[in-house]
């Protein structure tokens, strides 16, 4: 039974974001606690990625407050607790000189001192992350030569190498085939269940992971938080919340 922290990992209060006067997010509030599995859905341009960028301090909200482990983002230092895999993760430049090991080593950056190589602890964490994501046998391969699904697993191994408490994934499925996606989803569910890692995941494949997720955030300028996603997916209110995209989700569900 996962323990709940008294202090939430993320505490978001009345957050709004506008760019050039155009409102992207308006009055978003929620809390995220340890070991939750949360999916974020919403139409394109609805503000999903912006929300994640705000949570990571890559953008500054125009109103409201975001706290990470009780601290304001500018005062937060324990970034190794957060693993982030962006949308473009599997679209790495093929010429970039990086082996799988080079990329996963990056995950240990916050633990390493100046001039120092990898400590035994670093090496173990890197190997462990590669094993969990089933890429250990690829460690000397150049990332540019891997398939989309393999790259995706490498990027998550990098995020896991810092031993994070939360994984934030922004639709990391671009360029990944259907079979790889399915094994990827079961890996995420496993990380959540067995390692108690909190997962915050932007996806369009809500039908596929409906059984795994514990909460569902629907983002379309405003946020609707649903703590019982299965019920929500089955009800007609979904269309009202999600607009026209609701039908797409149901189609997805039938497809798989």
């Amino acid at each position: 039974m996962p323990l709940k922290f008294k202090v939430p990992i993320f505490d978001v209060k009345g957050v709004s974001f506008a760019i050039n006067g155009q409102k992207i997010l308006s009055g978003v509030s929620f809390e995220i606690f340890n070991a939750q599995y949360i999916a974020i859905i919403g139409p394109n341009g609805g503000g999903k990625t912006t929300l994640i960028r705000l949570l990571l301090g890559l953008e500054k909200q125009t109103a409201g407050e975001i706290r990470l482990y009780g601290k304001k983002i500018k005062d937060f230092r324990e970034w190794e607790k957060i693993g982030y895999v962006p949308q473009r993760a599997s679209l790495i430049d093929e010429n970039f000189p990086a082996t799988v090991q080079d990329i996963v080593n990056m995950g240990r950056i916050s633990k390493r001192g100046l001039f120092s190589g990898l400590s035994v602890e670093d090496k173990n964490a890197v190997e462990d992350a590669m094993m969990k994501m089933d890429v250990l046998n690829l460690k000397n391969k150049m990332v540019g030569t891997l398939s989309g699904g393999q790259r995706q697993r490498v990027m998550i191994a990098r995020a896991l190498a810092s031993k994070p408490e939360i994984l934030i994934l922004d639709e990391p499925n671009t360029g990944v085939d259907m079979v790889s996606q399915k094994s990827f989803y079961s890996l995420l569910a496993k990380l959540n269940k067995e390692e108690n890692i909190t997962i915050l995941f932007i996806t369009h494949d809500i039908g596929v992971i409906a059984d795994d997720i514990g909460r569902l955030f629907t983002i379309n300028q405003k946020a609707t938080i649903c703590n019982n996603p299965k019920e929500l997916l089955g009800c007609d209110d979904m269309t009202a919340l999600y607009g026209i995209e609701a039908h797409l989700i149901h189609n997805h569900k039938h497809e798989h």
Partner: protein
Amino acid sequence: MFEIFEYDFMQRAFLAGIIIATLASVSGTFIVLKRYSMMSETLAHSALVGVAVGLVAGFNPLWMAVIVAVLSAWTIEYLRSSFSLYSDAILSILLSGSLAVAIIIVSLGGAFNNSLFSYLFGSILSVSGEDIVVISVFGALSLALLLAFSKELYFIAYDEEVAKTSGVKVRLLNFLLVTVVAVIIALSIRVVGSLLIGALMVIPTVSALQYRVGFLKTGLISLAIALLSVIFGMTLSFYFSLPSGATIVICVIVIFIISLAANKR
């Protein structure tokens, strides 16, 4: 065979060449991976403004080159990170702007002579003992900084935003990188020339990338290519009375073509 080393000036030239090849290739690896290849050209032209001011006002041109190149590097980095401008456009603007300012200063001061010419094309064979000391001291400092932060700079080159969310001080390290590069360029233009330093910074790394190996090996191949080019270039320049900077650049381009052909997909 080794008569080349019987001359003091050749010994100094080789020493300066080897130090600069090392500095240029190591810093160049990060510059190329960050898609900042044009940065070296721009900073080399900015350094010329410093040289021009130095020549006209009677200050030491080398120090003035360092100051102006560093200021220019900071301006570029500030514009890039604070405004939504295209990086290559910023570099292009500053490159031509710097050259224009340098030419005007020199013509107004009536100092458009061989002295400026030697900074344009370099004069590796007239490197003094004092030059070696300055290049060694600042070179060692720059190299130490690059190596100390190499894993952070590599991470930033891979993905700036992911690096930031991993706690890397991206903005600070970007400023550090461009500062170190500016210093290295300013130190090098006396020797290889402002028109040619960019080649020594960029081409070894681009050649090394053709071998499709990991980061460390890419860096080492790039270093080997830069050293080979300088050693071959200077030897050819000595025996055939060719301009040293240009000969070095031709050598590095030949190695690039060989690397490209050998690794054709």
